[in-house]
């Protein structure tokens, strides 16, 4: 759903209050031209740089709240973190194969039934775009396969160009090795960046972001949506966290692709 500008502004004011004005300085964004430029970015501008890879829908809902609603293959999906590096290494082969997706009707908390996709290539359940009122299940399945083809094409191009800052947020604890494997897979495709968002603990306080490697940051937040209510945003800390992460990740040079991918890219482009 898309909100009107007036609605967005009203919701932002109510939900986030004054947090965004103080966020950059609280998290050490350097004063001077870079800090000024970041301070001038709206929350929407900052959120617009990121794209969710999972493991739920919360960040996509947060982006919508900030007026950002770009195409994103994984943003409404709960993809298994362990499966993501392999999917990326395989250049998403099979994600748009109609034989690998099964649509089913599910009653949602809104009271309206919705098509959900059990995706056997991506190993996840995701929301389907067509409404139950518009298409029967066979038509909706064909439409979803085509939608996945478009989203796949776009993801492939974006990841080669390093156009987005990818985000993986998880309520469940994740071994950092799995996050690093995801980052490595992204970097084998192009000059990408990744932000891992997790629950705060004794090692990383809520609102803090730290760089683990060039291009890979880890941030902590006070509350993440539960898995059974993935679009219910439970914190006002997102703008603060995203500003800090954006500052940290855009301050560093872009990590390059692995040598064989760089060679492949050069051969493809004739550079």
């Amino acid at each position, binding site marked *: 759903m898309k909100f*009107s500008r007036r609605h967005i502004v009203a919701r932002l004011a109510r939900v986030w209050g004054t947090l965004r004005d103080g966020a950059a300085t609280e998290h050490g964004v350097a004063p001077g031209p870079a800090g000024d430029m970041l301070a001038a970015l709206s929350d929407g501008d900052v959120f617009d740089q990121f794209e969710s890879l999972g493991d739920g829908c919360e960040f996509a809902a947060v982006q919508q709240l900030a007026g950002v609603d770009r195409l994103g293959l994984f943003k409404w999906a709960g993809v298994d973190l362990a499966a993501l590096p392999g999917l990326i290494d395989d250049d998403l082969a099979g994600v748009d194969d109609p034989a690998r997706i099964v649509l089913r009707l599910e009653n949602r908390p809104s009271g309206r039934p919705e098509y959900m996709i059990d995706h056997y290539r991506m190993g996840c359940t995701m929301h389907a*775009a067509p409404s139950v009122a518009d298409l029967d299940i066979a038509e909706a399945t064909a439409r979803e396969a085509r939608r996945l083809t478009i989203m796949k*094409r776009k993801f492939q191009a974006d990841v080669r160009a390093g156009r987005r800052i990818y985000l993986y947020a998880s309520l469940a604890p994740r071994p950092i090795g799995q996050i690093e494997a995801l980052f490595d897979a992204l970097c084998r495709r192009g000059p990408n960046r990744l932000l891992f968002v997790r629950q705060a603990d004794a090692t990383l306080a809520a609102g803090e972001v730290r760089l683990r490697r060039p291009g890979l940051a880890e941030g902590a937040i006070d509350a993440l949506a539960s898995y059974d209510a993935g679009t219910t945003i439970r914190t006002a800390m997102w703008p603060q966290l995203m500003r800090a992460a954006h500052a940290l990740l855009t301050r560093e040079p872009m990590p390059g692709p692995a040598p064989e991918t760089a060679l492949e890219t050069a051969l493809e482009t004739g550079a």
Partner: protein
Amino acid sequence: MTAALIVEVARIVSTVLREPVAADPALLATDFARWDSHATVEIIFAIEDRFGFEMSPEQMERVAGLASLIDIVGATIGEIVP
């Protein structure tokens, strides 16, 4: 751009959104409650089917309203004859 192209793009968007859409290039996705990212994909389908080309990821990224759609179609296939 021709008026015919503007009218045709507005018609396509109107069909997807299921609401009247004026042939006004200044209209943005944010002007329509139903024009979210799902609707953008549906509009891309409809544009590709009607004009017979495959939109590039860079073009998809630019879709933000009628003007961008008209620019993309016009630059890709040229003008249309009403």
